[in-house]
């Protein structure tokens, strides 16, 4: 069957209506072992999906709704539960064809672009493509390959140079290399797992134009997103998943933003205030209710002097290696800071926008004292602290909500309560020498009591938790320390809509109670909704500063990618 599939190039059957659908799924069920021994959790529970040739299909759902699992079943990476499989479960061009491995799926003509790309940075684009293609023979016919890559890149306006090394490419460019790989491998169904999460706003538009061009040439595109706006922007059909089941599937013109949000979170959960504006302007996730963008202090306490006190100040801070004259990176080490200045007052939230890898991480490293400050100074409440240790920073009231909780904040083999205890260690809690179970339990209970979201039980090892649960445990630990300066990285990443809203409210509460906050996020809607001021970072510099009311996403997007 694979031979036949390869013969017919997508261009030759460029009609969507006739013949069997490209892919038909019926009753796909995929279970994973549950938290308790012997139990299972159905990540996919009886999912039906139909995909025609030349169709763009968005799969929409919150984190943990089973989108990625479904894609991995389609791509042959996960085998669906054997007890629920029938010949009808998986039909490719009308024939039963359940692939037993990704290789088998690729032979059918299915290609997948994963969230974390599978490119080798030290090799060129062409070499990476060559590694992926089967049947290359022993010799690398580089020139021919380069020509074919250029041909595809030209046809779809992908702007990639096959001779460039992959580590010189931006994430958006790497994504396009992944796409070329699949096209050269003659894939006809292109699956994208959260393709927009690594892109700046205007790059998202570019990707969607590529999707449309692919569709015109008879390719089918299946992409995952958790953003309602993206699902509506480009797709022919939308399937909404919630807790492993399909809650809605229809042509996208039959949906509007409120109906999709309702299908995502469940009608009973959609707060009335969350109903977004018309589809064109709908934010990806509902804004927290009763939170105007610039929030005035609501309690009399902070209207006084404390409100104005500058809590955190960066003065011309540079980190990383000193610039070399011939470096490709004008100015500084990639990821480092270059003469960054800003200040945040108590009760203020400063948003930081930027494509990941433009110095955001170095902000936290410098603030925590992990990365030496080469030039400039950092001030906490007016006191210079440059050259400080992590312990100094933590005792000075700093709390950094890290980008990757599992690698930067948690000890995976420890229990939830032990990890909550860990959050206070650098601040001298617990003091003393002996540590017994009661100390741990009491501390965990105190933190849990002050945290409004549901959290995993104290005895579960963090390793066994889902991403969203780990994020909640980390947030509880950080927010429960009484810190006065927060630097939060993507605090709502991995959370469902309701938890994300609650987390934003928590940040606002901390701010209203007099804490200063720096919010680093890739979600412009979130930044615009929460920030009092907004910075844009590009290559370690501050590329622009806005009040949220005067910022347009297009303008921010251009600054994020170095267009000034």
């Amino acid at each position, binding site marked *: 069957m694979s031979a036949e599939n390869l013969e017919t190039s997508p261009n030759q059957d460029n009609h969507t209506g006739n013949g069997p659908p490209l892919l038909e799924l019926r009753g796909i069920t995929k279970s994973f072992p549950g938290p308790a021994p012997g139990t299972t959790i159905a990540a996919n529970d009886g999912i039906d999906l139909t995909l025609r040739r030349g169709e763009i299909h968005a799969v929409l759902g919150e984190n943990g709704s089973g989108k990625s699992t479904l894609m991995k079943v389609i791509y042959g990476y996960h085998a669906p539960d054997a007890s629920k499989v029938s010949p009808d479960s998986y039909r490719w061009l009308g024939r039963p064809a359940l692939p037993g491995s990704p290789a088998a799926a690729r032979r059918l003509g299915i290609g997948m672009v994963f969230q974390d790309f599978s490119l080798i940075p030290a090799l060129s684009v062409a070499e990476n493509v060559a590694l992926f293609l089967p049947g290359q023979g022993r010799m690398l016919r580089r020139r021919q390959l380069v020509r074919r890559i250029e041909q595809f890149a030209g046809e779809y306006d992908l702007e990639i140079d096959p001779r460039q090394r992959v580590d010189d490419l931006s994430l958006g460019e790497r994504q396009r290399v992944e796409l070329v790989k699949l096209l050269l491998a003659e894939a006809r169904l292109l699956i994208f797992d959260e393709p927009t999460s690594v892109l700046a706003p205007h790059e998202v538009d570019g990707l969607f134009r590529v999707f449309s061009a692919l569709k015109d040439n008879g390719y089918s595109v299946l992409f995952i997103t958790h953003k309602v706006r993206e699902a509506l922007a480009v797709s022919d059909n939308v399937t909404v998943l919630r807790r492993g089941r399909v809650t809605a599937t229809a042509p996208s013109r039959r949906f509007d933003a409120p109906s999709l949000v309702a299908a995502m979170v469940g009608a009973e959960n959609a707060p009335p205030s969350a109903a977004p504006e018309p589809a064109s302007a709908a934010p990806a996730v509902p804004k927290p209710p009763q939170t105007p963008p610039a929030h005035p202090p609501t309690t009399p306490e902070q209207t006084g002097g404390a409100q104005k006190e500058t809590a955190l100040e960066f003065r011309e801070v540079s980190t990383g290696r000193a610039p070399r004259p011939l470096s490709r990176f004008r100015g500084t080490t990639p990821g480092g800071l270059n003469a960054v200045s800003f200040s945040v007052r108590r009760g203020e939230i400063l948003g930081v926008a930027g494509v990941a890898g433009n110095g955001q991480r170095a902000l936290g490293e410098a603030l925590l004292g992990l990365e030496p400050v080469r030039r400039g100074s950092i001030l906490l409440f007016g006191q210079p602290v440059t050259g400080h240790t*992590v*312990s100094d920073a933590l005792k000075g009231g700093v709390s950094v909500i890290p980008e990757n909780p599992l*690698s930067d904040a948690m000890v995976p083999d420890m229990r939830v309560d032990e990890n909550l205890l860990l959050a206070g*260690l650098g601040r001298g809690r617990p*003091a*003393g020498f002996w540590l017994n179970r009661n100390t741990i339990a009491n501390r965990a209970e105190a933190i849990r009591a002050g945290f409004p979201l549901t959290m995993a039980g104290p005895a579960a090892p963090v390793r066994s938790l889902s991403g969203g649960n780990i994020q909640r445990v980390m947030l509880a630990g950080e927010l429960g320390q009484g810190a006065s300066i927060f630097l939060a990285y993507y605090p709502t990443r991995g959370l469902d809509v309701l938890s994300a809203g609650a987390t934003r409210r928590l940040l606002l509460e901390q701010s209203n109670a007099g804490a200063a906050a720096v919010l680093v996020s890739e979600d412009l809607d979130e930044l615009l909704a929460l920030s009092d001021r907004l910075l844009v970072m590009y290559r370690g510099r501050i590329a622009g500063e806005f009040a949220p009311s005067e910022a347009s996403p297009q303008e921010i997007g251009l600054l994020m990618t170095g267009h000034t």
Partner: protein
Amino acid sequence: MNFRLKLPDSAPSLQAAGPALAGLPAARAVLGVALALAIFGVFILASGRDPLDALQGAWRGVIGSPFGLSEVGVTMIPLVLTALATAIPARAGLVNVGGEGQLHTGALAATGIVLYFHVGAPALMLPLMALAGCAGGGLWAAAAALLRRWRGVNEVISTLLANYIAILLVNMLVFGPWKNPDGLGYPYTIPFDAAAILPAIAGTRFHWGALAPVLALIVCYVILTRTVWGFKMRAVGGNPEAARRRGIAVDRYAAAAMIAGGALAGLAGMVEVAGIHHDLRPGISANLGYLGLLASWLAGHNLLVIIPACFLMAVFLVTGDVLQLTAGLPSAAGMALIGLVLFLVLGLRRLERRPL
């Protein structure tokens, strides 16, 4: 010695006893041992002997006889200590391959007390020697810890190479200035006097040095599971990046764990010279440092599992000696058996860790 074991991606964290024990299902360990014995049996068969006979003989000679059991105990005493010497640094994320060298410097330091600071009372002499043993092993490990902290030298390499230096240092002393003038030219120090000897239990070689591993295990366990210090140590081992970001001085804790491990191996050296050899000589260790390393890996660096792991290894070592006598097999048979067990138990554990 087999160092090319596939090391797991991260040293398993030392939880309180419960979760860690659950992480090493006993069934898998038993299966590994049974498979190893079966393969070993095939080799005995191939060498023209009856494996069941050999096994029976070994059982009678080791578990079934008071002498065999006492020899197992004698082997376990230093083995538990050198296993801890690997397990404690592993808790902080370090690999200590230097148990052998630290054992030698510990024995050397303890002997130095006998030679130069001799006190007549055993109640004073033995604790003094034990302290010296700890100091000797600890200082030897400290060199590796400091090299790592200041120069970024990988501790696997530095501790391993330091083993050879330590062994040669002992040889240099016993062939040179410390040689017993009345020893007929043999490279031994003068025999220890009664005050410097750990008394044995009548008729066997099993001696009061057995208290050392028991105390060491209890102290290590309590520190790791019941103190803030141990909690931080476990955090450092479980995720150094998270620990650093929580304000824990990761380097300091790692160095402390390494030095503590060295001290435990040094204590094993003191126990061996004071309990078994009663002098310092070449070959005091019989690879006890390396065997302890293997026992710790076999136990997944879990303090409580170290006891059965060391028991198993001691039984196999003694079995090797017994088989030499009863079945005419080379004494390396015991080592071969240990190798098979490690291979299978670690291999089976690897299987369950396969990513989703």
